[in-house]
């Protein structure tokens, strides 16, 4: 099983090394940094820490990671089904599980690598003070965001093999971007609420926390980190469970 997962990972990585996908990766790395560089050039001075923190947080662990994962994790099954290759994988003893877990690993590796390079480029472009702390916090958030959103989108893709990306985008806009900002207990159910809290803890944003406490969780980044990891594991198990009991066959039947 483990060997099969890593074989899928290696096979998919080889397939991703195409000019088109490399340009996509580069765009995710460079676009946020380019935007920050333009902002800094127009203002004529280095960005302050809070402004840079929120801008980089929104552009990298949230938007870049989400975009990357939407395109990589969500169509894990759909792309094989459309390419008519699913049947060849599904008739291997651990084929179904190996494919989705292998593709999940590719999705998070691709997104984390783009996110870490992008974070570095953004911090260099913004010329912000306290760079090491900001880099460490945002990098942690890139990893957590990739793991948890990757698992979420994988589950959505397994549940909805036809319109997975549309549903994942709708879910993200409604739940992760809108509901997470509602000042009520319901926002604790979202990934972005946990990420925001870890960001506030990591960067010591105490003033912000006291002004808009309900938007952040309780203090203690470790607790939120563990919740996100548990959330990730639960989502992956749910995806495998759904896949185990789902009939996914060839598109054309005779």
């Amino acid at each position, binding site marked *: 099983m483990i*060997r*099969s997962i890593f*074989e*899928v990972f290696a*096979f998919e990585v*080889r*397939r991703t090394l*195409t000019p088109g996908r490399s340009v996509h990766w580069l765009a995710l790395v460079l676009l946020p940094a380019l935007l920050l560089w333009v902002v800094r050039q127009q203002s004529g001075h280095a960005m302050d820490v809070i402004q840079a923190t929120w801008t980089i947080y929104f552009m990298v662990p949230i938007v870049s990671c989400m975009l990357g994962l939407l395109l990589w994790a969500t169509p894990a099954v759909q792309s094989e089904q459309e*390419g*008519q*290759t699913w*049947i*060849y*994988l*599904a*008739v*291997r*003893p*651990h*084929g179904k599980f*190996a494919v989705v877990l292998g593709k999940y690993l590719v999705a998070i590796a691709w997104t984390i690598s783009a996110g870490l390079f992008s974070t570095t480029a953004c911090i260099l472009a913004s010329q912000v003070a306290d760079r090491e702390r900001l880099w460490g916090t945002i990098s942690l958030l890139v990893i957590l965001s990739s793991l948890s959103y990757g698992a979420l989108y994988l589950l959505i893709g397994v549940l909805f093999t036809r319109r997975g990306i549309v549903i994942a985008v709708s879910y993200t806009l409604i739940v992760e971007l809108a509901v997470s900002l509602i000042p009520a207990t319901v926002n604790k159910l979202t990934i972005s609420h946990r990420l925001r809290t870890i960001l506030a803890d990591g960067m010591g944003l105490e003033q912000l926390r006291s002004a808009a406490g309900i938007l952040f969780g309780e203090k203690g980044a470790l607790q939120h980190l563990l919740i996100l990891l548990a959330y990730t594991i639960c989502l992956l198990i749910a995806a495998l469970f759904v896949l185990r009991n789902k*009939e*996914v*066959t*060839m*598109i*054309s*039947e*005779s």
Partner: protein
Amino acid sequence: MISFQHVSKTYRTVIGVNDLDIEMPLGSYGLVGPNGSGKTTLINLLTGGLKPSIGKVRIFGCDPWSDRSVLKRIGLCPSSDVLYANVTGFQWVQYLTVLSGFSRKDAAQRARQCLQRVGMGDSMDRPMGTYSLGMRQRTKLAQAITHDPELLILDEPFNGVDPIGRFEIGNLLKEWTAHGRSLILASHILHEVEAVTKSFLLIHAGRLLASGKASEIQPMLVDIPQEVRLRGDGLAEVAKRIAAENWLVSLRFSPDRGDMFVAVKEPRALYRSLVELSRVAPINITGVHSPDGNLTAAFDALLKVHRGETA
């Protein structure tokens, strides 16, 4: 042993297979039926891709839906095409062999051997996007046999393959069965299956219509009512002379009157009459098209017999 115990599979309101009840020892079988008859559904049930709506499927004594380990003993060459354009045939077959439980080194060796065996030795390192349909079919066959399965299931393996390729693949399959290994070959073309195996399962509209050896099925098709198409000169004369025969069911001409369609209870009687007529009347028959190779017509005829519509 392959066993379908009163298996039905429905897709919402559509019936894929209907009350299949078969027990057959492992061996070599042709699964024959027109397009849309339920062959692929049956194969998906056998390989655990589908769960029966009703009934039980067993292969090697296991339920393929819940016991995935049985898949190691099965090789499947589906009818669907492969669309990994930038991956070489060798990389793809090696990849699937690793997923069957082999190490990368063993998988590479097996992949090369199998690709050479199916005649892809010279092209295995080219991207599959450059392959012809026939080359893709051969590569698909290689991935099905690379883990040395006990049962090989092929769904329309001759699609797109040139005559030489058909001959070579046919020989490979004959060699496969000659070594005592099991085979299920699904096709809608009777003579292709017949070249490989003599045992048939005839499936139509999700139902098992007939099963047995070719020698048992062919006489059934000959003696049941069939529509024969005649082409040539003097067809009107033929029509006049056979009109009163008791074996004639119906008779009609094509709009240009170049073809005549004769539905008969006993095709052999028609053929005898044509020979006799050609001696005594000014007719020149240039073409006789019987439905022997046309399974849809044969199945229609069999269904009529099953429904009691004809004697």
